């Protein structure tokens, strides 16, 4: 697993699902809280690794001793404090990935300026979902099933292994549909580390180490993964 340890700053209903999902995925989670109430809530929900610190104090933040590979997640309820915390963390741990939660466009901008690598807007996805419900019901249903962890349809990252038959062939020369899956995009290591959608119109040559993002039923994705390894 790429992520060694995840520090989640703040504990509230806003981030409860995330924290529980990460716990169920067997990540090493540390919840960092600033008051007794949040500490008690986290304990009640079954979390063990909880640290109470004053998050305004850089010395206490530095004492967490996060390594470069650790992910720092800022989900404080107070936007002002969340931005301040992001800035402090970026100052203390400049090489770490910082992911923050925002609730408006303006806060998103500030979090990015403060050094967050990724900012998730609390309402952007939902407001788009409402738009889709009103205008694209079939697409809404499809996207819902794609994102639902309980559904069989999903997206998966598949890395092309060494000596794979996919190495050095053009994307158009391989029929993914025959395997019941759709290739929607990839990270072409030769070109850049940017994610490219297959519909962008560029001709891609597949190489070992490239990451393919495929859409399909879990059975078909499993079979395909096994197929390219074998």
């Amino acid at each position, binding site marked *: 697993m790429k992520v060694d340890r995840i520090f989640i700053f703040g504990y509230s*209903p806003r981030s409860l699902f995330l924290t529980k999902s990460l716990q169920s995925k067997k990540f090493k989670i540390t919840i960092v809280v600033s008051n007794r109430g949040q500490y008690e809530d986290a304990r009640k929900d079954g979390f063990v690794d909880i640290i109470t610190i004053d998050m305004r104090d850089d010395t206490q933040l530095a004492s967490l001793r996060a390594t470069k590979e650790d992910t720092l997640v800022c989900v404080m309820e107070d936007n002002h404090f969340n931005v301040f915390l992001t800035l402090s963390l970026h100052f203390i741990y400049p090489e770490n990935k910082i992911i923050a*939660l925002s609730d408006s466009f303006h806060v998103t901008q500030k979090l990015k300026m403060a050094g967050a690598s990724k900012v998730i807007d609390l309402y952007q996805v939902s407001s*788009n979902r409402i738009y889709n419900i*009103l205008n694209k019901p079939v*697409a809404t249903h*499809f996207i819902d099933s794609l994102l639902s962890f309980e559904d069989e349809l999903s997206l998966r990252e598949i890395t092309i292994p060494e000596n794979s038959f996919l190495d050095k062939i053009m994307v158009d020369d391989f029929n993914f549909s025959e395997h019941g899956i759709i290739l929607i995009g990839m990270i072409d290591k030769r070109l850049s580390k940017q*994610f490219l959608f297959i519909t962008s119109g560029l001709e891609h040559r597949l190489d070992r180490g490239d990451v393919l993002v495929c859409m399909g039923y879990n059975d078909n994705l499993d079979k395909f993964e096994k197929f390219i390894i074998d």
Partner: protein
Amino acid sequence: MSFKNIIIKIAFYLYNNKTYKEVKKFFFNILQNPDYKYKKYFDSFMISLILVSIGILVYEVKHPVPLWVDNFDIYVVTFIFLLEYILRLWVYNDLHTLIIREHEESTFLNREFNIWSPIKVFFKGKWLHLTSPSTIIDLLAILPAYRPLRVLRIFVLFRVFKLLRYTKSIHQFIEVLATKRFELYTLLFLLLFIVLTAGISIYVFEEQKNPNINSLFDALYWALVTISSVGYGDISPVTHEGRVVSMMIIISGIAMISFVTSVIVSSFSEKLTELKENRIIEEINKNDSFIIICGYGQMTRMFLKNSNLLPYEYVIIEQNQERVELGIKEGYNVIHDDASKHDVISRFNISYAKITILALTGSDVNNIYISLNAKALSRNIKVIARASNKDMEKKCLLAGVDYVVLPNMAANHMLLFAITQPTIYRAIYNILTNQHLAHIDEVNTVTHLKLMGKRVDEIDFKGYKLLLLGIQASNDAPFCFNPPLDKIIEHDDILLIMGRKISIDYFQKRFQKA
């Protein structure tokens, strides 16, 4: 069969007669229901007819008009006015429903059926209608058609008054003034008092000395002309006493005019917001479908920013005055009210329009109450509600909400993807936020007829730089993900495609119905 039984039978016949009910409902809607979508056409037609009729009557004062124009005014215009008058009288109330109610009550209470009771109520209702100012105007507006009596032509004025029925702005002006009835009556009595006092004074002082004041009427006329600051100059005081009265009346006049102006201005400023809100509701009610957004917060702002709705396609209802002002400042249609109230939602055209309510307030309790209120008014209203967690989602669904959005959950999903599968996160982010790079859209064969009957491999999706994700058949069949190449696209199928926005637009244009 007794007379009473025949009447009851006729009443039940009319009550159960679908055609009769539909015809009456149609005329009621077109004449009385401001939310009925065809009423505006009827109103415009009547306004044109009134203007034409006034034009004819005014023109023929000094010029001879052709006979056919005169006949048009006498027979066509008057006939339509008369027909409207009769129809309004007809749709005002129902005798058969009153008879049935009386019959049911008398049967239930084991008392004798009294036919005169519903008839009395019926005629009382009709009398109320006939004596209402607008109906009297309608009747008087018919009179100018009677040519032998030229004096009746003065009633052409009532045709102008008849315009009040069809023009809302004049109606609203009168309504606003009516709210200041007390102040205006007080001023009117004060005016009468001053005019009367000044008139009598000038009459007493100058009747013998002023050749222009020969009667009390002349004196009152002078007082009114002076107090209104018109001052024709045909009558003016000639004595010192008379001039003193003049000075006093002029000062009172200035005060009176200032008072009247301030009363009218204040009544308008007080009612301005309400008038604006009424206008928003009237405008939106003219549409076949629209969205009512409850709550003006971050989510609503984000939704409006993404959806590019036109001003007549939505209205926001917000309880908090500060947020209302913010919304108006940001250019949105916001009204200050409580969407959980029955009266607020029932102001919208529930019977005829396709309404979607977005319950997006920050409180789960409010959102559920708004949803229940909407569903209680009409099951046809589509409700999309925001909930804070899974338990609330269940409660919303129990309350009849059609779709529930969970912002916390959605954002948490994205956080999870960002941490665990960063590559997928980029794809998902683009898809979920409708970015131009990765749009998922629907193409319906009903509107894109050229697709119908084609095999999947006959359409060059790759050439269009698109991915065909699947096909949803109309017959509730399960979604066909990654359809086989030999699948034939049928009528009513919906193709789910993914690609850049421009690719999708181009594809849709190419296969659109000619």
